[in-house]
């Protein structure tokens, strides 16, 4: 009995739960795949252990405000890190843009969307999906794009709002919305667009979708946090980030 | 009304009802027998509440059932009184009474609801809900409800069985009144001989799903080959008329086909028809007319038959001017007096009760 107990303690001691150096990182869900890849490389190169949590930025904000033990936040926008810093929940001077999102008009049907997005002018569709502009920067950018094209008034009634970019993607991929504004990172694999047809929205149609990272107050004095923040800017990370369709 | 012709062959596991009946189109016909004899099943079959192929039913000349047709229960012009009243709990008494009434065309309404209410004495109950009625009150309302639809055939399934003795005695007079007033035939199911002898004109004796005998009640009750005459409570019924009163002695005389009988004084007019019960145990025999005896009712009779019951008892059937009564005798008496069919004797009737 005593032997079993000792074994139990030893296992506990050896498990990651006991590691003091483990880094808790909250990551915006749209950056899931790239971050997994980057974190793997980071662990290999530095030996630091990283624990990733994926989810909606708004939810992370509420959790952090209520004391959630994250050390770092990789946000989907640039406003949330700024807000956290203003409220004393993030370390000043640690805010940095780790990726810039690329907006794309996509349809699951091949040949529907051409490089001019003529389909928008023709208007021969019932539903156009965008992410909820109040909650998702990609949604706000989509509305800005429609404004720039001068098509907002005529297309407003066809709009369908996904709660987040992931649901928006789902609406379009299931065919329920014939087309929609999604993130490029959602539709590319190995550098090219998987299926359907797409128009990559040029930069000048909307304000840049900056995704900022920041070290949170509970990450103060953690070398791993600063290391990860620096690592995000390395060429190795840059290659990964860009391969997933983000800009820098 | 030309009567009811019914043929049913119903099989359940462990039970079979097989009857071929002709019932009169007037008066009360009682379906009588022990429990399990099939009398309720038969009643339900005639009502259309149970159904079997291989059946035939015609009522008053109309086909209700044949291998090719089946008139559903709600289209049969019947009134049905259940053993358990079955008043609708969400309606008042008046609502219950009007339930069926509202579903027949006014042309077919030949019963006045007010008359029924008065007949069954349910006036004060009209605004109450069924849960505020006693068992006897519920049953009276159920009877009125069944009659309110002006049925051409009234069917009653042991309506008094779930009531205690005093309630039964309370309701029987209402039923007897109905009997006198109604011109429609009534089918009455019961296992209680007392009810049946007070109410029925015609008796159908059932046992284990078969008809043992049917006919006028008085003759069925005195047939020596049937269980009724053989039972300890065997009795005979006499239809008589009030002939006169003797107030000095508090006696009433009634006349029947066999002569006169004296009963305790009755408050009934001369000429009124009455039904008399004569228990077999209260009839003894002598070979010669007795004088100096306290028994008043002594009548000449001919023995029409004698049956043995067990080792020591006999029952004899007596013919008094065409009316039959029974007498319970010991074997010793039979042998000592050398009683045999055809013998002229004197019947001494000690206890005579009027069925009222």
């Amino acid at each position, binding site marked *: 009995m005593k032997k079993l107990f000792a074994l139990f303690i030893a296992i506990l001691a050896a498990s990651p739960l006991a590691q003091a150096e483990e880094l808790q990182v909250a990551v915006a869900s749209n950056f899931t795949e790239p971050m997994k890849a980057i974190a793997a490389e980071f662990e290999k190169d530095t030996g630091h252990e990283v624990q990733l949590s994926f989810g*909606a930025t*708004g*939810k992370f*904000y*509420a959790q952090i405000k209520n004391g959630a033990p994250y050390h770092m936040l990789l946000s989907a926008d640039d406003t949330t890190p700024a807000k956290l810093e203003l409220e004393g929940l993030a370390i000043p001077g640690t805010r940095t843009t780790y990726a810039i999102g690329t907006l794309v008009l996509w349809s699951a049907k091949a040949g529907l969307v051409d490089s001019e997005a003529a389909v928008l002018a023709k208007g021969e569709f*019932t*539903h156009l*999906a965008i992410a*909820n502009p*109040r*909650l998702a920067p990609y949604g706000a950018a989509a509305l800005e794009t429609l404004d720039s094209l001068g098509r907002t008034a005529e297309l407003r009634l066809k*709009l*369908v*709002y*996904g*709660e987040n970019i992931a*649901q928006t993607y*789902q*609406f379009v991929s*299931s*065919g*329920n*919305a014939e087309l929609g504004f999604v993130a490029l990172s959602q539709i590319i694999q190995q550098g090219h667009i998987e299926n359907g047809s797409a128009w990559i929205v040029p930069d000048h149609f909307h304000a840049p979708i900056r995704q900022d990272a920041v070290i949170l107050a509970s990450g103060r004095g953690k070398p791993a946090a600063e290391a990860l923040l620096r690592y995000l800017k390395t060429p190795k990370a840059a290659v990964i980030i860009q391969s997933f369709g983000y800009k820098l | 009304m030309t009567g009811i012709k019914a043929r049913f062959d119903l099989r359940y596991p462990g039970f079979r009802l097989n009857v071929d009946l002709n019932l009169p189109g007037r008066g009360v016909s009682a379906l009588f027998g022990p429990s399990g004899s099939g009398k309720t099943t038969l009643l339900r079959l005639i*009502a259309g*509440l149970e159904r079997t192929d291989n059946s035939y039913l015609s009522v008053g000349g109309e086909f209700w059932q044949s291998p090719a047709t089946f008139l*559903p*229960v*709600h*289209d049969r012009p*019947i*009134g*049905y009184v*259940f053993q*358990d009243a*079955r008043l*609708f*709990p*969400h309606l008042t008494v008046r609502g219950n009474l009007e*339930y*069926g009434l509202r*579903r*027949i065309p006014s042309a077919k309404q030949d019963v006045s609801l007010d008359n029924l209410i008065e007949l069954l004495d349910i006036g004060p109950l009209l605004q109450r*809900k069924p*849960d505020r009625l006693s068992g006897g009150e519920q049953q009276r309302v159920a009877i009125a*409800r*069944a009659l309110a*639809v002006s049925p051409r055939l009234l069917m009653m399934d042991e309506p008094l069985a779930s009531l205690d003795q005093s309630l039964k005695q309370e309701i029987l007079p209402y039923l007897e009144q109905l009997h006198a007033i109604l011109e429609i035939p009534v089918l009455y199911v019961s296992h209680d001989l007392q009810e049946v002898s007070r109410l029925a004109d015609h008796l159908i004796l059932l046992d284990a799903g078969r008809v043992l005998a049917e006919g006028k009640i008085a003759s069925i009750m005195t047939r020596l080959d049937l269980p009724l005459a053989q039972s300890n409570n065997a009795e005979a019924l006499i239809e008589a008329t009030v002939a006169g009163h003797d107030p000095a002695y508090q006696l009433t005389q009634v006349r029947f086909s066999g002569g006169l009988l004296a009963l305790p004084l009755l408050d009934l007019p001369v000429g009124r028809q009455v039904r008399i019960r004569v228990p077999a145990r209260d009839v003894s025999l002598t070979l010669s007319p007795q004088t100096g005896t306290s028994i008043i009712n002594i009548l000449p009779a001919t023995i029409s038959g004698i049956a043995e019951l067990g080792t020591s008892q006999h029952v004899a059937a007596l013919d008094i001017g065409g009316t039959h009564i029974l007498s319970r005798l010991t074997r010793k008496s039979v042998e000592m007096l050398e009683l045999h069919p055809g013998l002229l004797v004197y019947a001494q009737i000690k206890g005579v009760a009027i069925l009222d």
Partner: protein
Amino acid sequence: MPDQSNLAAILLTLKLASVVTVLLLLIGTAIAWWLTQTRSRLKTVVEAVVALPIVLPPTVIGFYLLITMGPNGPIGKLTTALGLGTLPFTFTGLVIASIIYSLPFVVQPIQNAFAAVEPRLIEAAATLRAHPWDRFTSIVLPLARPGFITAAVLGFAHTVGEFGVVLMVGGNIPGQTRVVSIQLYDHVEALEYGQAHELALALIGFSFVTLLVLYSFNRRIVSINP
């Protein structure tokens, strides 16, 4: 006074819940009656299917509805062939999704109420010239009334509280599918806590008053028909 968008969400939710409750009372009555009367071997199968929405997570229901009602799913293909387009992102689509989601909460109370009506009373009605439909409306329905009230309350409340299913198939369109639960969720996500409180309190207040009224109505019936 709640602001425009909150008011619109409230009115839309009330409209959805009312429409769904009425439809479910009709559909539920038919299903409940069949279940009470049938002796078919299919009865337990149907009961299990009806009860599924109690057990399944609403997002699962919503997800599969999105697929089947979409252009590549069987229902979607049917609606397109009938010239009705597809049902996701429409009020009609929400009504259908809500009917499925709230079905057992309406069917089960009605079924229990029907089962409690004694068959011998229905038999008595038959002897009083009532044909089958008449027996149903004059005997069964009145005696089952408490069950209907429970079913209506549950169906209405369940639809008002619906979130997961609407989240999947609604598309959050103002005036069409942006119901209170979604609007509330958005307020919270967008950190508009003041608006969120306003909406939530309005919803709680309304629901409480409705329940009070309905239960006092039920109590009056119970005291008349103990």
